[in-house]
């Protein structure tokens, strides 16, 4: 059974991908994608039911195949570097291929690790996120890419190619979260980088290729650090046994400088999670079609980065490195939240907010208490759902108004009430109680006092978060006094993923108590054991610490009562107020309203009674939070923090 489960999780997306490449018919291709999505979802649920196990594939020399493919990918990077004349890509391809060749031919390394895959509860959480949310995004992409090409008037369709990389991504991610053998983990890591490059550069515009190349070289620095960590482990820890993730996190490393490879791998995680100063690659990735952004931000790519750091947490628990990682994450959370305020493009706000939340997750891994790890895992799940939904909303909005600018979304509530409603719930779910993201933030803040400076950054960042989300939502809601907005129709390929994710926000949010108790607690214990840290009343989340055998209560989050309050707040206006057209009035304009008394006018008499249209705009505070203002010093601090993180491990 394990054989077929693993094959479906990792190899099925590959096979399906080639099938998609071969099929040229829109409907047949869509059917293949939907079928693959359904099988992946069912398979991930089956993983949950079966529970943890270990697995080593046999019957074929998989290690050799992976080595060959490794070189294939790296040689392809070399080719990209040369053909684009991008020296950074070329250099960082060489810094990977040369050490890898040294490792395999000079050191003649044996890289058989048993078990090759360890599927524990954390992996299962990840595979659920990848398979369910990732699959929904693939379904969304079927119709999106059709509309996208229709709008661009392309002669030759590239939808198959796009969906191929999209589906392949899911397989690579599944492999990544299951792999125990570091060399295999490295391979899947590189496959995700490759998929990411192909998807960002999909439109083949100059900007797309440039940004894709940037994503490639920045992630290749991470890959380089990873391969160096592998070589260091192999050379100093006596062979292939040290290349097992379980050995590393199980305290199996001995000798001096054992933290160095761990620090290098955390650096790798930070590059993939686009932590400062690497945020620019994820921002650049915004040029790609929106399903790519949705996939990169919610369930794949960046989540691989935070997964690696969270996974490694036991290896650096209680050390200097742990605090350094907490600071790197917390600073990114703060810096990118500030940058998000200045952004005028919806997708860029989302991108900065993603990086900020990933920073929060990484900081939680660095704080490294059972509480903060629980917060990290919850944040991974909640963030994947909410951010997946928001990107799909951004794509839907883009295909309605053909713009990504927030100012163009002014008054979207009239043009597309349904999309606006879903977007509004998505935005509110990012930063307000009782929704899951705030629950995660709440736990993180309660856990953060151990690293007080990180706690201060959390406080500042969560305030800035309120500002940029509210600003954006406010622009969507601006309407003229008018009743009866016609509700727009959404294609099922859009509607099904949107509604599923929207319902997901509420189901996971309301059910978080039982879900934590029955499922996430085990995942937390895979990282750090601390049973009973979050206990569950019928409807309350209660945080406790087991100090002096007597449990002290840290805080209480009454989940259900809070949702009840939300429902009351939403129901009251509908029950209390029915607005008649005769009760509508124009807004106050000092009595200078034009339009002859009709309420839905935004024209007024300016100088010499010229009728002028009233125009409102959002504030973006460019002179305070603009990229030009913030980035230079913020990047400098972030680089310094990374240097301190890795350098400190060597010096101390």
């Amino acid at each position: 059974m394990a054989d077929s489960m693993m094959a479906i999780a990792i190899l099925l997306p590959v096979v399906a991908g080639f099938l998609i490449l071969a099929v040229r018919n829109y409907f047949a291709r869509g059917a293949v994608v939907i079928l693959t999505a359904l099988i992946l979802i069912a398979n991930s649920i089956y993983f949950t039911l079966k529970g943890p196990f270990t697995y080593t594939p046999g019957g074929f020399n998989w290690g050799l195949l992976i080595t060959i493919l490794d070189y294939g990918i790296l040689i392809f990077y070399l080719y990209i570097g040369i053909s684009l004349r991008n020296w950074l890509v070329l250099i960082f391809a060489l810094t990977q291929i040369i050490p890898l060749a040294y490792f395999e031919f000079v050191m003649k390394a044996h890289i058989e690790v048993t078990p090759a895959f360890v599927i524990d509860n954390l992996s299962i959480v990840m595979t659920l996120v990848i398979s369910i949310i990732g699959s929904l995004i693939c379904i969304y992409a079927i119709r999106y890419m059709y509309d996208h090409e229709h709008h661009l008037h392309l002669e030759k369709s590239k939808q198959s190619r796009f969906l191929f990389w999209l589906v392949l991504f899911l397989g690579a991610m599944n492999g990544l979260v299951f792999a125990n053998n570091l060399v295999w983990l490295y391979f899947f890591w590189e496959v995700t980088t490759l998929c990411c490059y192909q998807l960002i550069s999909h439109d083949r515009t100059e900007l797309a290729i440039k940004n894709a190349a940037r994503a490639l070289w920045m992630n290749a620095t991470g890959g380089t650090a990873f391969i160096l960590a592998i070589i260091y482990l192999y050379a100093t820890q006596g062979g292939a046994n040290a290349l097992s993730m379980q050995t590393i996190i199980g305290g199996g490393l001995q000798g001096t400088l054992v933290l160095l490879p761990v620090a290098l791998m955390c650096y790798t995680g930070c590059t993939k999670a686009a932590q400062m100063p690497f945020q620019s690659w994820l921002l650049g990735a915004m040029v790609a079609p929106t399903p790519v952004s949705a996939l990169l931000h919610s369930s794949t790519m960046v989540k691989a980065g935070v997964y690696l750091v969270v996974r490694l947490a036991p290896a650096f628990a209680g050390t200097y490195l742990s605090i350094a990682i907490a600071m790197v994450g917390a600073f990114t959370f703060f810096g990118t939240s500030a940058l998000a305020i200045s952004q005028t493009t919806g997708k860029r706000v989302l991108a900065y907010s993603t990086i900020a939340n990933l920073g929060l997750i990484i900081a939680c891994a660095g704080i490294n208490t059972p509480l903060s790890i629980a917060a990290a895992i919850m944040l991974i799940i909640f963030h994947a759902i909410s951010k997946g939904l928001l990107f799909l909303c951004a794509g839907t909005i883009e295909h309605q108004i053909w713009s990504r600018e927030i100012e163009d979304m002014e008054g979207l509530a009239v043009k597309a009430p349904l999309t606006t409603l879903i977007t509004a719930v998505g935005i509110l779910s990012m930063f307000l109680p009782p929704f899951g993201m705030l629950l995660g933030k709440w736990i993180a803040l309660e856990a953060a006092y151990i690293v007080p400076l990180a706690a201060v950054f959390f406080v500042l960042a969560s305030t800035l978060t309120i500002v940029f989300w509210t600003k954006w939502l406010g622009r969507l809601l601006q309407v003229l006094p008018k009743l009866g907005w016609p509700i727009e129709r959404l294609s099922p390929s859009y509607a099904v993923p949107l509604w599923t994710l929207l319902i997901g926000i509420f189901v996971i949010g309301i059910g978080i108590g039982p879900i934590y108790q029955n499922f996430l607690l085990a995942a937390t214990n895979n990282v750090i054991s601390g049973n009973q840290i979050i206990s569950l009343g019928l409807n309350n989340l209660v945080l406790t610490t087991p100090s002096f055998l007597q449990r002290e209560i840290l805080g209480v989050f009454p989940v259900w009562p809070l949702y009840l309050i939300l429902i009351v707040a939403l129901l009251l206006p509908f029950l209390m107020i029915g607005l008649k057209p005769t009760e509508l009035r124009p807004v106050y304009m000092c009595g200078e309203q034009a339009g002859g008394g009709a309420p839905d006018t935004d024209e007024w008499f300016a100088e010499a009674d010229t009728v002028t249209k009233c125009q409102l705009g959002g504030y973006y505070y460019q002179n305070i939070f603009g990229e030009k203002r913030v980035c230079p010093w913020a990047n400098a601090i972030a680089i310094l923090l990374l240097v301190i993180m890795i350098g400190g491990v060597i010096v101390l």
Partner: protein
Amino acid sequence: MMINQLLLVFIVLVGAPIVGGLLFGIDRKITARMQGRYGPPIVQPFYDFFKLLGKQHIAVSKMQFVWIYGYLVFMIASLIFLVLKSDFLLLVFLLGFAAVSLVLGGFSTKSPYAHFGANRELMQIMAYEPILLLLAIGIYAQNGSFLISEIFKHDKPLLFTLWPLFLAVLYVLTIKMRKSPFDIATSHHGHQEVVKGVTTEYSGPYFALFHLAEWYEIILLLGIIALFWTNPLWVGILIALAAFIIELFIDNIAARLTVSWMVRLSWSVGLILGIANIAYIYFTKGVS
């Protein structure tokens, strides 16, 4: 226990607006006397409230109502959290939701004045939210818990160790009470108002709801200040009332500052007070 709590919540839900309304009446009386006027009777806010309720229902958009009710409901919710001595951090987040609702209410019209007010209200949130969150962390540093009930279990008042944060919270009180120099989003005084700021487009019964929420808010804020001295609680309440009177004086001797000054002051002086306070406790007490 359960019955007692329900009774307490009920008393507060009914009593808070009465006391809050009276406080606003006292505010108007004292302010008038300071300005050499006779001033309205102390129950004037209630006259105003019932008059507003009886006015014609007119509105500029349906969406406004969702947010004004959100403002009221979440304000009441955070007050209930205080009364039930629940989690202080969560209380701050709920108060944040209430404030965000008011901002979105302003944004959901195409009114230039409401937009001015909403943008300013948002900057006010940015100014005071970190201080309140730092207060939560300060309380945790002192008591090892975010629960308000834990504050009541300690004999030593928070004021002794958290006095820098107390000063910072007074600053927050000025912003939240919409008093000069920070009556930026909307003001109680007509003479320094950009029309009516964030509340411009609310009228009649819906404007009454805004007042009701404000009455709950003042009780909530004074309650938070009273937490600085909980044993015995009457000392804390006296401190809160003293803070209230001080705000009235500040209101009458200060002129309105600009938005950027408000944010700059709170992100420099306010945050330094808070951070220094927490750092001091951290280094003297260590991680509890």
